[in-house]
């Protein structure tokens, strides 16, 4: 690929390639299933560590006298998530609110990487001889599927923990009664499998579409980019916060569904 004067197709493809490590040979490059997307891992772990550090700092410095700006901000976020959980979930669970907070803030920050110019991080990476770099971690199916997979495991766990043997009865007899048992099981399986798939594909699709449109805008002449880029950035601010919020909200709703029995 000619890096200096790429064609449109090459430029787009360059922005769709990950910085990968092949685990068979431990060299850079695509290794099929045994591949680590290093760019995704680096950016997402850095962001996650940053988020945890800031919140830890706020928690350590928390006072009941006059709270500082950081403490106010963190308390605002926590109260926001807490309110959402209280509204949607009526059981007793110590995990769900912190999980919601983590999901919301982490996904929001990862989505925010979409707003920095598309060529900035790849340019910096190319100084270190890394020629493919995708800056947005949620623009990687592995991240979104990993997160929705964890949510799915929690759904299964709480279904079994809360309902116990009642779960078997619920799967076999809902929603059509005992006589249509196979159809009930089939429906239940579909219902459960659709949850993680739709959760992750929704986030990935939105971020992929947003990133691709930013890349396409970057193909325009430099003096006109600010018009479309500005409009799309403004719209995208809405999209990234809504997608983070939806992921959190649906997680809470799914886990609260796992807690409530139908009868």
């Amino acid at each position, binding site marked *: 690929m000619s890096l200096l004067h790429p064609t*449109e*197709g*090459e430029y*787009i*493809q360059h922005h*769709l390639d990950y910085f990968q490590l092949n685990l068979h040979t431990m060299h850079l490059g695509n290794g099929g299933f045994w591949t680590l997307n290093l760019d995704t891992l680096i950016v997402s772990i850095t962001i996650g560590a940053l988020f945890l550090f800031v919140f830890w700092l706020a928690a350590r410095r928390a006072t009941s006298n006059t709270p500082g700006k950081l403490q106010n901000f963190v308390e605002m976020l926590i109260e926001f998530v807490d309110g959402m959980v209280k509204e949607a979930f009526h059981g007793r669970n110590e995990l769900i609110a912190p999980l919601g907070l983590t999901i919301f803030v982490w996904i929001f920050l990862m989505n925010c990487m979409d707003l920095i110019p598309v060529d900035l991080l790849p340019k910096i990476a190319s100084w270190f001889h890394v020629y493919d770099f995708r800056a947005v971690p949620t623009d990687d199916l592995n991240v979104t599927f990993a997160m929705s997979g964890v949510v799915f495991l929690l759904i299964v766990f709480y279904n079994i923990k809360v309902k116990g043997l009642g779960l078997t009865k619920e799967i076999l007899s809902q929603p059509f009664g005992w006589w249509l048992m196979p159809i009930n099981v089939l429906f239940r399986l579909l219902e459960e499998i659709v949850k993680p798939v739709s959760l992750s*594909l*929704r986030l990935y*699709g*939105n971020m*992929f*579409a*947003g990133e*691709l*449109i930013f890349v*396409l805008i970057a*193909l325009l002449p430099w003096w006109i980019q600010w018009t479309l880029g500005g409009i799309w950035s403004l719209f995208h601010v809405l*999209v990234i916060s*809504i*997608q983070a*919020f*939806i992921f959190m*909200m649906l997680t809470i709703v799914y886990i609260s569904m796992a807690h409530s029995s139908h009868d």
Partner: protein
Amino acid sequence: MEYAQLVAHIQGLTAVAVGLLIGLPALGTAIGFGILGGKFLEGVARQPELSPMLLMRMFLMAGLVDAFAAIAIAMGLLLLFGNNPLILAVAKVLAVHTGA
């Protein structure tokens, strides 16, 4: 000449597919947003005190309505501007057949 016709055939069909991929989701979300916004205004007109809560729910639903249209539009734009995999596949077959 035959090859040019072949490529033109694929490009024409791709253009139609891109039109459908961008147009149909736009149609769907337009209808969805129309119903969503209309119902939201109805709800606020009935009970104005609920409007903050309804606004938040509306945005949640807006994200859900928006999501799959965004995916389809990205697929369409990828076909239109990116390396079209369909043409690349045909080019590969042609390269084998012509021995180039």
